[in-house]
């Protein structure tokens, strides 16, 4: 695995209106890595993801993806930056008025000069990669939760991004479907060499797919741990981290 960082988050503080959610967050994600952002509900992990994909401007700090600052990039630079990333949202966020295939065709139509048949062919290959070829002409409403997440990943892969952000990919899925999705993520990582940033609190997925994780905490409002998930589970001194990884009943969590 290459050691070169593709994402650099430095001294980032995030918040909404007057409320600070996370303070002084700094970390790096290396190229080709599957990086997990963990934390309990309301800890700010999705807020951090929003900032990393450019939907939320940090109060301060810098977020660089492949050398381009997400906070200050505008116009063509921002467009170039957005072409390097793909995002699969928790709900799938597929465009409900289009078929699954059209959802994938859309970014290709908008950002390439490829002929229509080439675009459709590419979109079909993306669907095959996530095992959804048979659902190409279905509407998103006709898909199950797991299929929707796969379709969202296929759309996020449309422009061959360098980094794929997944927001709670296993949320709301049964254990088998969740495990299948984990396999898909591992497969895509190995075959395409894409860097993954996954926001999750699903322990089985964390241990199954992530190389390194970062944990944020609601009370501390900052990063409380970073490292390999197994190492954090077995050796972390932080009681919040230990409780999270060992699923201990958190009577003390509210202490």
């Amino acid at each position: 695995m290459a050691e070169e960082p593709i994402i650099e988050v430095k001294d980032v503080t995030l918040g909404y209106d007057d409320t600070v959610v996370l303070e002084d967050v700094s970390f790096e994600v290396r190229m080709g890595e599957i990086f997990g952002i963990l934390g309990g509900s309301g800890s700010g992990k999705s807020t951090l993801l929003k900032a990393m994909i450019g939907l939320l401007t940090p109060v301060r700090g810098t977020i660089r993806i492949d050398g381009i600052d997400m906070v200050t990039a505008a116009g063509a630079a921002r467009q170039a930056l957005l072409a390097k990333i793909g995002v699969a949202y928790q709900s799938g966020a597929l465009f409900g008025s289009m078929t699954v295939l059209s959802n994938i065709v859309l970014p290709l139509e908008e950002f390439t000069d490829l002929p229509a048949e080439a675009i459709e062919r590419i979109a079909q290959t993306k669907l095959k990669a996530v095992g959804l070829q048979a659902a190409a002409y279905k509407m998103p409403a006709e898909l199950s939760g797991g299929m929707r997440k796969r379709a969202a990943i296929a759309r996020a892969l449309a422009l061959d991004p360098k980094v794929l952000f997944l927001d709670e990919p296993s949320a709301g899925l049964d254990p088998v479907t969740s495990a299948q999705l984990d396999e898909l993520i591992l497969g895509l990582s190995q075959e395409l060499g894409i860097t993954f940033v996954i926001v999750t609190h699903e322990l089985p997925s964390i241990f199954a797919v992530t190389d390194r994780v970062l944990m944020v905490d609601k009370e501390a409002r900052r990063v409380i741990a970073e490292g390999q998930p197994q190492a954090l589970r077995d050796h972390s001194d932080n009681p919040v981290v230990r409780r999270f990884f060992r699923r201990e009943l958190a009577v003390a969590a509210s202490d």
Partner: protein
Amino acid sequence: MDDTDNIAFDFQPDQNGRGRLILRGRLDRETTASIWRPTTHLLRHTRVPRLLVQADQVVYCDGAGVALLDEYRRIQKEHRGQIEIQGLPPQCRQLMALFGTDQLVSPPPVPGPVTGFIRGIGERAAGSVREVVREVSFTGEVFVKLVRALARPRTLRWRDTLVIAEKTGPNALGITGALGFLIGLILAFQSAAAMRQFGAEIFVADLVVVVLFRELGPLITAVLLTSRSASAFAAELGTMKVNEEIDALVTLGLDPVQFLVLPRIIAVLCVIPLLTVFNQLFGLIGCGLVMSLWNVPTEIYLDRIRYAATLTDFFGGLVKTFFFGALVAGIGCLRGLQTRTGPTAVGDATTRAVVNGIVAIIAVDGVFAVVYYVLGI
């Protein structure tokens, strides 16, 4: 009713500052109400330093019963008294452990009526200013992007625009025509009844045609589009916002204004003048029907229309429709994009789109009335 189906209490204070509260029967959500006030009132007033709650004759206890015992604890704590609950059945003890709390969370402080009123005015004023700034900024953004898109038509999503235009225009022909017909009919009937007293029913045509061309045709069509299309735009975009589809567009590098708003505005701008003419045409037919009932020959009616209506009236009305159309589509889209989260968010966005749209249309119509008057149109 069996005694065990009800609750009874007995309070026995002694001279050593101790009090014994004996409870008998069921402590559930139906029976607890009967002893809540009497017992808590008693404890507050006697303020016994040591309270013994004897609960060995309690046969059942649910969440309401636990809340009552908890209230006793709180009252004792308030005046620094002690409390001991004795003989509580095991099932009730488990519930106490689960639901019992020493500290109640207080509701956030509510400002007094005067402070709250003043603060409310301030917050509303600040909110209105922010809203105006957002609307002006949105209008500017849309205008700039519209000009850019028209200069480079290939960047526009014409297929989407056509689909939206079809939904907004041809699909609304029936209701637009029906409404125009009824307005023409009612207007003619009401005015003819009055004017006939003076033998001037022939001039009803003059009145109706001018009103339809200059005011009511454009206004009714715009209000109809607001309730039909602005609400649809707000609901569509609001649902997309709630489903994170707008976020998905942004992270795909697609501009929601270019992708979603411009097709809607262009579609409405294309269909609103046509719908207005259709509305006016059916208004004239409705008026004609009334005139024929009053025995005014069709030739004379048509002659009056030609005489009374000028091209200035006709085009003066049509010019307004472009402004109305931009308002209808713009407000519908803006309210949709401003949708927040929650189950009522889309409904709220739709309501705001319709209300704001109608108010804006009438306000702009008033401005046109003044401008046309000044210009002598």
